[in-house]
């Protein structure tokens, strides 16, 4: 599992080329910047339709939306065939290409344990096309395809538990990270570079435009998500070994996370309580798993 690093150990080198086309305060742009600091330049960066959050000093390839897992597979196998498996095949994908339209291909790549790295910048909706709901959109969130009205309270169903789904493919590494916790994110990317096989990191990437908050608050929102337990930071090795990386003595209330975001502004007391309860219950399970050092799946 990852080894903690300090702020001083975060590499100074930058692989991003800016200014780019990201919105002000883009969480995904920061996710790319941090991840690529750790990945280094010996990478072929793979993309699929997504927000144009960043451009990096790496060769880039892209393919159809649903082809994320397949293109990483092809590159990885091709690199091996030409004797260049020193080069990393890295996908930097959104939640659409990971949770929904891209899930089949990624699941199959995980099942085959392809030697690839998947980094998902999770902004919890199809943001590039105007904030339509995805399987990553949390319960009650307002999106353009889950509006709030007499017949709808935002998204009716909870967010898919993608890390556990991929862990159940028994792959070497599945981790969660947040742009609000850069040392943890970079430590996890560092670790992923030391192992072979299917590695995945889901990075919480708050989106000021879609989640509807002041762009200056991107990190505040990220931090509140982690500190309230809504976005836990953990890692799962081989589908079994489990570590909860951030364990405060007491979680902050979920309202600290929900209030700054207008996508949750319509929520009633009962709905907020629902989120608080679910989140607390899920957190208990993670704490137990951490105590045992393993996941029961």
């Amino acid at each position: 599992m990852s080894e903690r690093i300090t702020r001083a150990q975060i590499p100074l080198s930058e692989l991003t080329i800016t200014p780019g086309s990201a919105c002000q305060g883009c969480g995904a742009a920061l996710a790319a910047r941090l991840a690529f600091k750790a990945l280094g330049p010996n990478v072929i960066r793979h993309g699929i339709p997504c927000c144009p959050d960043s451009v990096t000093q790496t060769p880039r390839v892209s393919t159809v939306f649903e082809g994320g897992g397949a293109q990483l597979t092809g590159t990885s196998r091709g690199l091996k065939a030409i004797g260049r498996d020193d080069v990393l095949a890295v996908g930097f994908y959104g939640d659409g290409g990971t949770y929904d339209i891209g899930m089949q291909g990624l699941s199959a790549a995980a099942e085959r344990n392809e030697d690839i790295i998947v980094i998902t910048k999770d902004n919890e909706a199809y943001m590039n096309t105007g904030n339509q709901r995805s399987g990553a959109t949390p319960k009650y969130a307002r999106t353009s395809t889950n509006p709030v009205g007499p017949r709808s309270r935002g998204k009716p169903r909870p967010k898919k538990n993608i890390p556990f789904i991929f862990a159940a493919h028994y792959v070497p590494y599945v981790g969660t990270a947040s742009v609000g916790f850069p040392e943890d994110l970079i430590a996890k990317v560092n670790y992923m570079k030391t192992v072979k096989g299917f590695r995945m990191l889901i990075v919480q990437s708050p989106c000021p435009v879609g989640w509807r908050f002041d762009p200056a608050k991107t990190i505040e929102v990220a931090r509140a998500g982690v500190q309230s337990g809504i976005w836990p930071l953990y890692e799962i090795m081989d589908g079994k070994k489990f570590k909860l990386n951030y364990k405060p003595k007491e979680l902050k209330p979920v309202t600290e996370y929900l209030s700054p975001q207008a996508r949750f502004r319509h929520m009633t007391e009962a709905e907020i309580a629902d989120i608080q309860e679910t989140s607390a219950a899920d957190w208990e399970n993670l704490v137990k798993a951490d105590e045992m050092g393993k996941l029961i799946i």
Partner: protein
Amino acid sequence: MIEIRLHGRGGQGAVTASRIIATAAYEEGKYSQAIPMYGTERRGAPLTAFVRIDDVRVRERELVHNPDISVVLDPLIAKQQAVVDNLKPGGLVLLNTAYPPEEVELGGDFKVATVDATTIALETLGRPITNTAILGAFAKITGLLKVESIEKAIKKYFPGRLGDMNIAAVKRSYDEVKGPIQAVVKDAPEQKVDIHVGGYGVLKDVSSWRVFTPDIDDDKCIGCKTCWIFCPETAIQWDEEKNKPWIRYEACKGCGLCANECPVDAIEMVRVEA
């Protein structure tokens, strides 16, 4: 046929403004067409929209390349020479700015009028969204549309109390617009920054995205690297020798994240001079 180009910022309703103008024209028995120009509009990025008004159905689908009128909704974008590019000679320019027309520095053969639509919007709507506030001034200086038609169109987009507030803004800008006068500056000065970009990828200079600019006080700075680590645009660089941050301003979009995160309040977000 009259062709109009509007300049605004992503998220500020320039497209809605174009549709309100088109709707108002239709209210008066004219035909119209409102075209948004999709490119890299991101929150805060400058963008362009077009309107055509004619007595017969508008057939052309090409973009407006030589407008009769240019309307600028944002006071910072109003300082970019590009807003008057390709205007028909003798055209008309309406700028949202606190400066009077005599002090406008854009150059060329056109008449210019100004109105402080931002202040009007802040006072009537409580928000600096100027897409409706500027339309009263538009009606006055162009003589193309009656204020009543604009009001009818606004009611279609903003029902109820919101509509009334917007109409109040329209009435004020009708009364407060200054000009038009022939542009004082004759020659076009050099264009410095992008105000509309096609395609995605790396841009040249995003200074025009900023409404506020970060200013770092080196004396207060404790070298904790917080601002540096959290800048999404890699605009803040780290000077290892001095152990201080410095900003690549051409890459800074003015999001304010750095100032918000700095633990010792060493960064101030300063309003960009309009």
